[in-house]
């Protein structure tokens, strides 16, 4: 895998129309480390405008609005760094029912 790419495997699911979720793979150019949230943002802005995710809110990693499973583990996506050449898996948090893709109802 090229050192200047991050491969992101992202869970896509629209409960309104899909019977089940699926994983899409995205190749994100990266010369330097990116947070998991940056990666989601990049995909939305440059590859797939239909990706549903909760974008930045507090910018200091305290509010948890970006909570999702990153590589299987619940985490604030803004605070998990992914290096060029690595791959990452983004899935919705289990904290609440899925609205669409990476967005869940937050309590």
């Amino acid at each position: 895998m090229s050192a200047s790419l991050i491969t992101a495997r992202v869970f896509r699911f629209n409960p309104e129309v899909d019977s089940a979720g699926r994983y899409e793979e995205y190749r994100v150019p990266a010369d330097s480390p990116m947070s998991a949230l940056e990666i989601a943002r990049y995909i939305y802005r440059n590859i797939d405008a239909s990706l549903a995710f909760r974008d930045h809110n507090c910018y200091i990693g305290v509010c948890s609005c970006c909570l999702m499973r990153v590589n299987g583990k619940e985490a604030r996506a803004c605070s998990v760094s992914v290096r060029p050449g690595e791959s990452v898996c983004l899935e919705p948090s289990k904290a609440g029912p899925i609205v669409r893709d990476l967005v869940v109802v937050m309590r």
Partner: protein
Amino acid sequence: MPEINQIRQTDVLVIGAGGAGARAAIAAAEAGAQVILTSKGPLARSGITPLAQWSLEAAMAHENPADSTRQHFLDIVREGRNLCDQNLAEVMAAEAPQRVLDLERYGTRFRKKDGKFLQLTTPGQTYPRSVFLEGGGYGMMLGLKKEVQRQNRIKLWEDVCVTRLFLREGRVTGASVLDLRKGELIYVQAKSIILATGGNEELWPVSDCPPESVGDGLWLAAEIGAEMVDMEMLLYYPLVGNWPLSIRGTIVPYEIVLEPTQCYGKLVNGLGEEFLPPGGPPARDVIIAAIFREIREGRGTPHGGIYLDLARSPKGIEEAGHIMSAMLPSVLQYLRNAGVNPLGAPVEVAPAAHYTLGGVRIDERCRTSVPGLFAAGETAGNVQGANRSSGNALCETQVFGARAGEAAACYAGETAADMPEVAGEAAWEAEKERVYAYINKKEGIRPQEIKQQVKSIMGQAVGFGRTKQGLEDALQKLAELTGQMDRLKAASVLAYNREWLEAVEVEAMVKVAKIVTLAALTREESRGHHYRLDFPERDDCNWLKHTVITWDGWEFTAKTVPVIVTGIPLNGGEVAE
């Protein structure tokens, strides 16, 4: 708390659930009103309030008994460069202490010292006055969230965006609300409406506020004829993470990192030179001017910022590092998670749009110029004036949030005893068509493209250092952008469509940008956070006035109104104490 299915009617509709909106909803519910509280995101995890720092100003006089609400009032007016409406400043100072006690009762935690509130000084305070919120703005929201959930008359409606307000016979009757989860536009009949939607920092290239802070709530008010006051006043925060992108938007508190009694770090330009005078950081506007000068004159970093260098602290890097760990643990952790180590290398930072001092014009009961429409918090305009000290923004949310809630409940109970008639069918159908059109086009322009163009125009000509020519050019460019609005297209999906929200937002963004630019053209002097290169002096003879911009349905008009003076005579501009 009840789940929401279809909402149709309410006494009070509160738009925005940050510090002011949540507090307003609580006050309205306590006054007996049925309340719907809307938020673009999850309560306490959306809006601008969660990123606020620890400081909330209130003259508790626990740290220093010499402090008083009268002194707080004087400080607000002086720091506001005399542009505050004094009736509002006086109320804010007088009621802040009680609002702090309310927050504590709700469950918000404050740092205490021997059972009293710990109070620290932030620049601009005569006595140490800022109480210390554990968890900052996010911590404040946690207490408010508990109380909102406890109040049975509040229906919380999250992940929605209000797209338009409706009038009937000159007073508000309702709103159209885009439920983002379902992708459905719903009409809400409301006897009164409170706007608490924060500011419009995202009009500029870099802000420290969330992406949705575009000021679309301000356009909701302006569109139905509310007067917009002092919209030219833009407060930058001096040090915000600039590069790498993973730290862009993160506040790096200069009050700690540059302060001689704290980290005592240094600002360094792209050539490795320190450029501030020796000693402690000067006033906020002076630091900002100095940083912008370095960048403008070509001595910035490769990404348009400057460096914060803790290694140059006279205390040494180890001591500076210890202090930063103790005082700013969240910021330090966040930077480290992003691969940035302030203790190992200089950090690239730059000023970013932080707070908008102007907004919807209100009176002491938060009434706007439109009957039934109220505003509170950053959304309201004539409270802070041309500048404010740290801690007065959160203070404003609590004092005026409470007042707006009480006043709106009162209005709903007395003036509008019957539920107002639904907006005319034609107006409602037109709004549905407008909003659904974005997702039904086969091709068009992405909202983010227009957004970037707005940011570029505003950053170029309506940021720090403005001229008549630059502002007129900006208005021209914004007019050209307006012509592209009917080609706006969002992705075609109903459920939680970010791009659909962006389309709604960007259309309002262009309008708010025009209001700001027009206000900047109108004020021909420099005062506080409005700096005209062609009128660089403060002019108290002619300009103890607010700029007021109004939309009449066809175009914007500009006028000025005098500042309201009550308890502090302004003799030729000098504050008489």
